[in-house]
């Protein structure tokens, strides 16, 4: 229920341009995209925004954005696509994207602003929120009503229901992608209009001192960790980067992605963008297979919403067995090759 301070008259609520009652209810979703493709987490974010039933505008910021705009307009359930195209937006640096987001939200008075709870969304959205004087909500896992949202705290050991009590300003939200699963998308029934942000707003953008120096992209050819249906995760017990190839091979047979615990990342077995957990990626696949992972709370925070959890560990007391649907107490070096063989047998049958 909305709580209206006693000092605020009905007159004021109806006439104040920032009042929630006066303001049109509509959502703006910041589209995450890379290499001229929409990132899957954008779809989860739109799924979450749809729950409120308001009109949704997708905002695309960048340099080469025509293909992305077309993809969004044709395949996502949005009523409008807003494109901010400028050569100096090519790396989507937080300073400029946040400033642009603020200007657009102010100009068009959106009631809700959404972004994926990825490193992209988490980098930009709080910055835009602060300049709008709004306290954002991170990692929304449930949308209760237009002011009320559920989010995990303490590494997912508790779920907090939080409600905006201030009347002013938009609700600024990042969405935990795994909490809003989407089915494979086909073309939409109707195409959304594509509008380009005019030069005034773009020329207002302050030149940032920030320079993009470069990036290292880890390529694997496997499904993306955050959206894979099957995830095979390895821990310290793998003992070396070379032994991780066993998991790569198993993941390839299963058509799944490979993830890791923090211990495996810190030991240098795999790059850190494969880390699953409180401070890494949060996954919720149909099947999670934890290999040589003890199950520290920080790791469990990243996988315990998986549909089926399998744990393979030599230690029968390992905490991961408390959340596993199927636990196998066996040495991984014998279990994994055997597992792969059994699956191949099944696939041949």
């Amino acid at each position, binding site marked *: 229920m909305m709580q209206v301070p006693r000092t605020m008259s009905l007159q004021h609520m109806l006439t104040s341009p920032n009042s929630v009652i006066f303001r049109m209810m509509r959502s703006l979703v910041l589209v995450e995209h890379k290499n001229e493709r929409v990132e899957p987490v954008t779809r989860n974010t739109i799924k979450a925004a749809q729950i409120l039933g308001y009109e949704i505008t997708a905002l695309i910021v960048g340099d080469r954005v025509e293909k992305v705009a077309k993809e969004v307009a044709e395949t996502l359930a949005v009523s409008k696509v807003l494109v901010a195209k400028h050569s100096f937006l090519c790396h989507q640096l937080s300073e400029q994207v946040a400033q642009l987001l603020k200007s657009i939200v102010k100009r068009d008075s959106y009631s809700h602003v959404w972004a994926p709870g990825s490193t992209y969304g988490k980098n930009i959205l709080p910055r835009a929120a602060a300049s709008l004087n709004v306290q954002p909500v991170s990692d929304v896992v449930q949308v209760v009503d237009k002011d009320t949202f559920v989010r995990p705290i303490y590494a997912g050991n508790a*779920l907090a229901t939080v*409600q905006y009590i201030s009347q002013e300003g938009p609700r600024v939200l990042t969405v935990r992608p795994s909490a809003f699963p989407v089915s494979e998308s086909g073309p939409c029934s109707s195409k959304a209009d594509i509008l380009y942000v005019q030069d005034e707003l773009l020329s207002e953008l302050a030149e940032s001192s920030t320079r993009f120096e470069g990036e290292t992209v880890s390529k694997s050819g496997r499904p993306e960790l955050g959206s894979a249906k099957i995830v095979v995760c390895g821990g310290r017990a793998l003992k070396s980067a070379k032994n991780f190839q066993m998991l790569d091979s198993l993941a390839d047979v299963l058509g799944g992605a490979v993830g890791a615990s923090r211990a495996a990342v810190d030991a240098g077995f795999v790059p850190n963008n494969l880390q699953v957990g409180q401070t890494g990626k949060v996954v919720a696949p149909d099947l999670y297979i934890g290999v040589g992972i003890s199950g520290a709370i920080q790791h469990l925070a990243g996988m315990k919403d998986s549909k*089926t959890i399998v744990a393979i560990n030599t230690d029968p007391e390992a905490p991961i067995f408390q959340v596993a649907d199927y636990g196998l107490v066996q040495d991984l070096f014998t279990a994994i090759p*055997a597992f792969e063989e059994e699956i191949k047998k099944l696939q041949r049958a």
Partner: protein
Amino acid sequence: MKILVAVKRVIDYAVPVRVKADKSGVEALLPKMSMNPFCEIALEEAVRLKEKKFVSEILAITLGPAGVQDVLRHALGLGADRALHVVSEQELQPLAVARLLAAVAKRESVGLALLGKQAIDDDSNQTGQMLAALLDWPQATFASKVEIDTSVPSKMRAVVTREVDGGLQTLSMELPAVITADLRLNTPRFVSLPNAIKAKKRQIEQLSPDSLGVEIVPQLRTVEVNAPPLRNAGTRVSNVAELVERLHNEARVL
């Protein structure tokens, strides 16, 4: 250059928590509080920058009621030069924390603010980004490597490698800036006993939101806190063949 490091006192990362019966919040099963691990990494980085002579003074700051001061003692023991405590009995949400930090950063004319990327209690991952916005400074979040470029002495730059989904990204930006630390930025040192004893005697400067001219109006109310849904008890399988059979026929995921 002065550097501001914000540190938060949280339930120790290794202590299990449970939701309180009245759903008002969580409680720790053991009474152990510590500095948020990401804050410790931020502070360690500040100390290393000072050891490399880029930094003249490290200001450690925390916010909250009287009881939070022990993290400042810890910060002094680890190498902070000054400890500042913004005393507030009110609940401080990240926007309020960012406002208070911005006021202190301006007052002290700091050249760099280092924070952890998130606190392990509220898991918000917002304060650094909000601080950068309020100060209109550039930001580098999720840092795993920080270098200072002094090739133009009047315009020092930070060169920061960030951990992003899909890999690593390197940005460089003019100081002052806000940097938030990821896990792999460094491994924090331990406090030596002599340093811990010295830190006990050091003075902690007290500030208040009023003295900083910051009004705190929470925008969010926590309606309730619930335990996450429990998973059904699982079963142990005796061998790989049984595991695959069950995943195929029972769970139907293969």
